[in-house]
Structures are given as C-alpha cells and as structure tokens.
C-alpha cells in the first residue's frame, strides 16, 4: 500500500460504521459486541472470541428517530446513535454493552430494552465514579460479572490464560498508539489530528490484530511526512464524544495543528497498559479505573488537570481547545475547571459547544480564527464558552 493510501484507507474506513476487516471477521464466524465507553474492558470481549466494536453515530440520518425516545434535552450523540439503532444499522451486532458513563448514555440501556431492538445480549456494565481500593475491588467484581454474563449467553469460557493473551495483545496495540502519538511531539507534525481521529475510529471497529497492522502501517508512513505547516498553533484538544473528522479538519484549516488530546477516541483509549503480571482480573480493573479519566470520575479532576499541564510542556502546546456537546453536564463542569486553570496558569483556552454533526461551521471557523489570532498576538482574553447554533446543518439532520 503506497504512502498516501493508508491515510485514504483510514479516512474511508472511519466514514462508515463497518468495514472489510469487520465483515471478514463476521464471515469467519466471529461475533461482534458493541460497547459505549472507554471504561468497558475490551479484553473481556476479545477473550470471549468476539470483536469489540465501539459504538458511533457515523452516517446517522439525524436525531429525529432517536428523539422519539429521548428528548430535546438529551445530547445529540445518543439521539443520533439510537436513531441508527432503530434504523437497523447495527443489526450485525451479537451483543451490546451499555455503561453508566453519563445520564444520557445510561438511559440507552433502558430505551434499547424498551424498544426491544436486537441483539438479545444487552448488558449494563457499571463502573465506579471514583478511584481507590474499595472502588477497585468493586470494579474487579463487576468485570468478573461481565465475563460471566458473556459466558452464560454465548456458551464460551473466558479463562485466565485467554484473558492474559488478550491483555498482551491490547497492550501491544496501546504501545503502538503511544509510539504514534510520540511523533506528534516534534516541531514538524507528521500526522494531523483529524487523521488520528480517523485512525481511532477505524481501529475501534475491527479485530485487534487488523487494528495493529493498520497502526503499524500508519507509523511506517510517518517518517519524513509533514502534515503541519510553519506557524501552525499547536493544540491540545479536550473533549468527550468526538467523531466528526470534518470538525477537526476545520480547526486545522484555520491554522491549528492538533498534537495532543484528552479524548475518548484519543489518548483515553490507550492510556496506561494493563499490568501483565499478577491476577489479570485485578490488573484489568486497575488499568480501566485509573487510565486517563473522563469527567465522570469524581476524585480524578486534579489528575486530569495535572495531565493537561504535563502535556502542555511535553508537546509544546500553544493553546487548548475544550469541547463539549450541548447538554453535557460532565464536560461542562470540566471545561469550567480548565477555564479556571487557564486563568491561573495564563494559557489560552477556547471553549466550544456544539451538536454532534450539528453544523455551525461558519460560526466555529470565525471563532477559531479569532482565537488563533489572539494566540499569535499573545493577547489573552477571558471569553466564555462559544455555542455554535448550527444554522448550516446538512439536509436530513435534526
């Protein structure tokens, strides 16, 4: 595959909700289990012989159908994704794992059951909102319960050995992504943030071995490649749900180079390896509980802020962009904290609010351009969150 091809490949894969690798696995007899959150241990799904599939709203036809069950006060991700569910876009799934990630997503479990849409295997996976020994013990038990549920439904058996093998594989994938991210520390950035997002979207919906091969191919294509331009503002992007490659391309087109992030389909996905020695269940729980947290983790906000400051130094960050979807309490709170830190530590931050695939490109572009100009001119301004109202939405979307 040529140097240009792999980036086109990942772009094409990420633009759909399934791909040839997934289809090949399904044809080969592998089952697919969808999951919603970075706190769900993929290794358990893999160890059962299934392919973990990170749920998404890519190619959604809008939020109209999802809004029958949800309301206008719920986030556009769940409405769009559930709309796809009701359309049958995820009919290839053999199982679905929900999580108490947030109020919007936890009700997906209730609405999915109520709508009685396949698949039959629907499991609510519960992660603690805190770290610590008590929470770790609880989480270890929860992971065992999750494994037993899969075993019971699919007639498989997850041994300690099979789990260790899955952990080893997923750790390898994590190391590859760490290696890829390290390329972004340099002055010349060989891969765009939008390309990284495409890659993350791709590798979270295919068998892990195919994912690793794809990541290795991308890494091999990076030396000598220049995706950033002179004068690009180096950006740390903090966000929860982010799957719109076009949105990142917009930021990049304004003169930004997204070099680091705290995103579910980003650093959070691969941060921290699972300890390969010792009890694999406890090690799995430890990793998933203590990886780069999202704002649902109540006693980890200082760690997130520390991580932001460390990354700013490590990646020579010029400015931070924090994003949230409308109606997201958790990210709303975290953006508030980041804003306070930006005042204390005097670093520029732009806070954006949007709807998933919600348009508003013109407004966002203006805002980002203005922000970048301020950064270049070393003007620190204390503006609040910018809310894109999406007047230029695509036809067919709500």
């Amino acid at each position, binding site marked *: 595959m040529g140097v240009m091809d792999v980036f086109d490949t990942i772009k094409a894969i990420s633009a759909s909700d399934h791909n040839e690798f997934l289809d090949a696995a399904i044809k080969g007899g592998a089952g697919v289990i969808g999951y919603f959150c970075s706190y769900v241990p993929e290794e358990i799904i893999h160890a059962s012989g299934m392919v973990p599939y990170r749920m998404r709203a890519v190619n959604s036809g809008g939020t109209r159908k999802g809004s029958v069950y949800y309301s206008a*006060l719920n986030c556009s991700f769940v409405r769009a994704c559930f709309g796809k569910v009701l359309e049958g876009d995820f009919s290839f799934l053999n199982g679905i794992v929900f999580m108490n990630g947030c*109020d919007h997503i936890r009700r997906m479990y209730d609405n999915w059951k109520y709508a009685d849409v396949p698949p039959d295997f629907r499991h609510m996976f519960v992660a603690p909102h805190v770290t610590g020994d008590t929470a770790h013990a609880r989480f270890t038990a929860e992971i065992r319960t999750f494994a037993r549920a899969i075993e019971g439904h699919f007639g498989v058996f997850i041994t300690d050995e099979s789990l260790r093998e899955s952990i080893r594989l997923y750790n390898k994938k994590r190391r590859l992504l760490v290696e890829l991210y390290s390329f972004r520390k340099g002055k010349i950035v060989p891969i765009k943030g939008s390309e990284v997002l495409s890659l993350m979207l791709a590798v979270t919906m295919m068998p892990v071995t195919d994912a690793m091969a794809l990541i290795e191919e991308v890494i091999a294509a990076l030396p000598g490649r220049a995706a950033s331009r002179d004068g690009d503002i180096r950006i740390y992007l903090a966000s929860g749900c982010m799957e719109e490659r076009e949105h990142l391309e917009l930021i990049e087109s304004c003169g930004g180079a997204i070099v680091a992030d705290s995103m579910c389909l980003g650093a959070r996905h691969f941060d921290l390896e699972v300890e390969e020695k010792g009890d694999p269940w406890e090690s799995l729980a430890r990793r998933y509980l203590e990886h780069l947290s999202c704002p649902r983790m*109540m006693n980890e906000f200082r760690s997130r802020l520390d991580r932001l400051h460390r990354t700013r130094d490590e990646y020579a960050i010029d400015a931070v962009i924090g994003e949230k979807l409308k*109606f997201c309490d958790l990210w709303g*709170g975290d953006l508030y904290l980041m804003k306070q830190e930006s005042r204390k530590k005097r670093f520029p931050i732009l806070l954006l609010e949007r709807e998933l695939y919600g348009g508003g490109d013109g407004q966002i572009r203006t805002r980002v351009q203005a922000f970048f100009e301020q950064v270049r001119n070393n003007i620190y301004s204390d503006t609040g969150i910018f809310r894109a109202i999406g007047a230029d939405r695509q036809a067919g979307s709500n």
Partner: protein
Amino acid sequence: MGKKSIHDWRPLRIMKISRLLFILIYVFSRVPRFTTALMYLLRPLYEPTRETWLNRKFRYGLLTLGGGLLAPEVFRAYGSGARAFVENFNSVFRAHKKGEPIVWVEWILNAEILESFYVTSMCSALLNIFANVESMAAPSQIIEEAENQGTPVEYCSAMKLNMGAYLLHQIPKPDLIIAGSHPCDTNVSIAQTMEYVTGAPSYFFDVPYWKDDDSFRYTEAQIWEQIEFLEKRLGKKIDWERLKDMLERVNRFNFYLGEICEMHKAIPCPGTMINLGYAWVVREVSLRSPHALAMAKGLYEAVKKNYLAGKGVVRHERVRVLLWFPPIAFFTYLFKWMEHEFGAVIVADFIGQVSTVPIDTSNKETMIRDLARTQMHLAMGRQCHGPVEFITDEMVKYFEQYSIDCMIFTGHQGCKHGWAAVKIIQDICRERNMPALFLNIDIMDQRCLDEQGVKNEITKFFRVQGWA
C-alpha cells in the same frame, strides 16, 4: 421600592432572614389555632395576589405553611421543624464565627454520621428552598450569577443555586465536603467543581447502580471509608454511642413518616402531602436536631387523628393525584392550592414518600450496614440512581396502592436522565389509562414556567378531565 442588588447582599443574608422567619414560625406555632386563623384572615394580602413589596418577605413562607389552610395541630408540628432549622442555622453561624469546622453534606446523603463527631454540618443545597424567602426572583438571580461565572447552563438549577449561593457568600465556606454521585450527572460534576473552588477536602460516595446485596455492601464499605476520612480530617474518633442515639431517633423519624405514607392510602386521604415535603426538607437540613423527631411525631399524630375518624384533609376529595418527579421548590403551595381549588389531593409524591429499612443499632457493624441501606432508600436517590424501573416500578406501585386518579409529572429541565425516559413513562400511563400532565418546568427557576403558569397548566388539565 428598590430591591438590593444581589451583589450588595451581606454574607449569609438569606440564611439569617430565614432563621428569623423560622423563629417567628416556632413562636407562633405555640398558639396554632390563633395563628392559623390569623393566617387565614390575612390570605387576601398574599394568596390571590402576586408578590409585592408589601408581602415579599412573608408570602412564600406563609404559602408554604398552607396559607392558613393547615390544621392547627399540623402547624404546631411545623413549628418543631422550624425550631430544628433554627438549631442547625445557629450552629452554622456559631461555627462560622468561631472558625470551627463546617462540613457540607450534599443532599440525599446521611448527615447522621456527623452527629457522632460533634461537628457542625449543613446541607449546601438549602437555598434551593430558602432563597424563595428573599423574593420570587432571588433563586433566578442566584442561578444567573452562577451561570455568569461559568457554571454550565445545562446543570440542574438546584446545583446552580448551590454554586451561586457560595459565590455570593450566602452559604459559608466548608472545611470538608461529603458528596455523592447520585442522583445525576450534575451532582457528579459539581462535586468536583465545589472541591476545586472551595479547596475543601471531599469524600465522594460512589452510589451503586443496582439495589442488590453487593450494592449495599459496597455502600457500607464506603461509609466505613467515610468514617476514616472524617476521623483523619477532624482529628477525632467517632462516638459510637452518640451515633446509636442518633440512629434510634432516625428509626423513629422514619417510622412516623412511613406510617403517614401508609395512612395516605386511605380514602379520603387524611393528610396533606406538603407535610411530607416539609419533613423531607427538615431531614435534609436538620435531621440531627431532636426537634425534627418532635415534628415527625406531631405530623403523625395529626394525620392519625383524621385517619381514625375517617376524615379527609379536604371536605370533598374529588381527585387523587400522584406528583411524580421532584416537587416545585418555588411553588410549595401547590399542594394546598390544588386541595382548596379543586378538591384534588396529592396523596403520594416523589420526594416525600418514605420507603426505607429500620436500622439495627445493636452494634457498630449493624449500624453501618443498615445506614448504607437507608441511604440507598432516600427519596430521589432511590429512584434515580439506577435503571428506569426504579422510577417506573415505584410509580406503578403507587398508582395501585394509592387509588390514583391522575399523575402530574414535573419535568424538570435539568433532569436529563428523567427526560431520557419520558417516552417510557408516558407509555406506561397510556397503557393504564392514567391521565397524566407532563409539565415542562424548572423546579427552581421560574423563568421557565412560573407559579401562574403552573396553575394555568393544571387548571387546563383538570378542566379537560372534567374535574374543574
């Protein structure tokens, strides 16, 4: 007459005004017949009218106290509750003045443990209700202040009020915070913000998703952790005997209120639901006071008297209503207004229903075990911390047990998980031919739908049903 700008408010102003009003309530509650008669005679000054400069400081309070429509013995019991509030506020002011530790206990958590540490506790969310004492506009102003300072606008307004109250120095800075992950994301988020903004070390409860034995054991383990946290931070050991006394009072408190809930199943309903709403606020703010128990006992005896006589709280009970989801904080008079206007009695609701387990005070282990269970049975927490069945099963149970004629759903704007389940709730009502009014409201912020708007919606609903 000009009102003070909120930025001109002195520190703790609203708490001090509230304390004064509670002192008056307590004093007047000692002569309940005279007071309820006086309140009834003075109704034209505050009930049919909107808020004016003349009635601003007492309208909300008098309406909450039933506007002269409460039975004297019930009003007397309210006086005990008011005294419980005064005790708590006094201890907060004293601790604030002397620089002694103050522990914020977020709502739907147990303040009982703090009793055994001889430390002042306060519910940081108390201005959700008491801000209305300042004026009708005060809660919205406080919320707006929080939003202007960067608090996410989509937060539940209860927590925006919390934040605004702190930023405006209307509640004292805490030394420690006890917070939890229920009932929703706003709590998860603002607990972190509050620790950041106040700098106060916090203990965060991770409330389990289910209600099984594992979940109770997990909560129990966290209560033991909480005790360790408090012992370390306060530099003193828990007094188990004092905790035992406290929990025995809690058992009796819960017993009285649980009995009232049972008696409400009778036709006609012998009690008014505002009793249990008021008791819930007392529970959240001042459960540690012995006057809280006196209030519960007084309410129980008053309702029991009616129950034994087969007497309803209204002369002609025409409609039995289930009020589902949190009640409207700015319109606490809703209960008596509906009774007075339509003979419609709210017989059960989301927040006042006490459905808990007794605490075995034999030893430390049983106390903590059962405290964990009661914590998970506290109103709003017990319904909202898990799957939608926790909301709908309880709702359907009440349809049947309380002979409900209709439901009013207070669709609070900030409640994302509630709105995410509205179709399920609507379908259940439809399948059971249960008339239901779904209000689109913010229960703290009248900018969304105000008191008159609520009255209009309910009136229209009752007219359509042929009840008005």
